[in-house]
C-alpha cells in the first residue's frame, strides 16, 4: 500500500534527522551536565533523558538557535532537579585521566580539580549560570533565556558565584 510506504519513509527521514542531532549535540550536552553535576554517570543519565524528550517533542524547531536553546534548557532543568535531590558532592569530582606530562600540566590539572570541587558547592542555579556563561561561552542574554530569568539576574548570579569561588579556593589554599 502506497500510504504505508509513505508512512515508513516519513518515519525513516525523521529518525535520520534525530540521529544527526544526537551525534552533533551529545558531547556538548554531556559536558554541560557533567560540569553541573560533577560526575559522568549522572551526566549520561541526563543526556539520555534530554534526547528521549527531544524524540517525543520532535524536531519542529523554527531554526537552529531554538533547538540549541531548547536542548540547553532541558539539560539545565534536569541537572538542577537532580542536584536538589542528590546530596552535594563532597568527594573530589572525576576528571579525565591524568596524563603523565610536564609539571605545569599537572599543576593546571590540580587547579581545575579544585575549581570543579568549589563549583560543586555553589547553589544549582548559580552553578548552571557559570557553566553556561563561562565554560560554554554563551552570552548573558542566551543564559537568561535558558534559565528563564533576566539578564540582570544572570549577571548577579555570576558575580556572586565568582566571589564565592574565589573565597572557596582561597580557603583551600589555591
Amino acid at each position: 500500500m502506497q500510504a504505508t510506504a509513505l508512512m515508513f519513509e516519513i518515519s525513516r527521514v525523521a529518525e535520520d534527522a534525530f540521529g544527526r542531532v544526537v551525534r552533533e549535540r551529545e558531547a556538548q550536552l554531556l559536558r554541560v551536565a557533567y560540569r553541573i553535576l560533577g560526575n559522568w554517570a549522572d551526566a549520561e543519565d541526563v543526556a539520555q533523558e534530554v534526547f528521549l524528550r527531544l524524540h517525543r517533542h520532535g524536531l519542529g524547531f523554527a531554526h537552529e538557535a531554538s533547538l540549541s536553546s531548547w536542548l540547553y534548557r532541558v539539560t539545565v532543568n534536569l541537572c538542577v532537579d537532580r542536584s536538589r535531590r542528590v546530596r552535594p558532592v563532597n568527594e573530589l569530582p572525576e576528571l579525565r585521566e591524568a596524563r603523565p606530562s610536564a609539571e605545569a600540566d599537572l599543576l593546571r590539572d590540580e587547579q581545575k580539580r579544585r575549581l570543579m570541587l568549589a563549583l560543586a558547592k555553589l547553589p544549582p542555579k548559580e552553578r548552571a549560570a557559570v557553566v553556561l556563561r563561562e565554560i560554554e561561552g554563551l552570552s548573558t542574554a542566551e543564559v537568561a533565556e535558558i534559565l528563564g530569568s533576566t539578564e540582570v539576574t544572570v549577571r548577579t548570579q555570576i558575580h556572586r558565584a565568582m566571589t564565592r569561588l574565589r573565597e572557596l579556593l582561597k580557603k583551600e589554599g589555591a
Partner: protein
Amino acid sequence: MREDEIRDLFREMRDEPVPLESLVRVRMRVEDRILRRAPWKFAAMIGAFAALAIAAFVMQVRPAARKTASPPVAMHQPAPTPPPEEALPDGLPLTIRPAIVRKALKPRPAPPAQSISIRIETPDPDVVILLVGE
C-alpha cells in the same frame, strides 16, 4: 586565585574532550529506548491513518446515498369538484371556470460532488500528508 585566572581555567575546560565511552553509552541507551518504543508508535500511526481513511470513506458514501434517493414528486392536488349543477334561473349567463392543473415540478439538479481533503500533520513541519477524495 584571581578572577581572570578562574576564567582562564573555565575556558580551558571548554575544550576538554568528553570520554568516548560516555558518548557511546548515551547513544546506545537512547537508540535502545527508542527502538523499544518504536513498534507501538508505528502501530499507533497506522491505526490513526486507518481511522482517517474509514472516516473519509464514510463521508464520501453519505452524499452519494442522498443523491440516489428518489427525486421529489410534485403533489397533484385534485381539482376542486364543481358544485352540483343546480338549475339556474333563466336569463343568467353560465360561466364555467377551467380546472387549475398544476404542472409537475422538475426534480432539483443534484448538487455537484464535493471533494474531501484531510490534512495530517507530522512532527516534521515540512512533511504534511494530504488525503483527497472526490
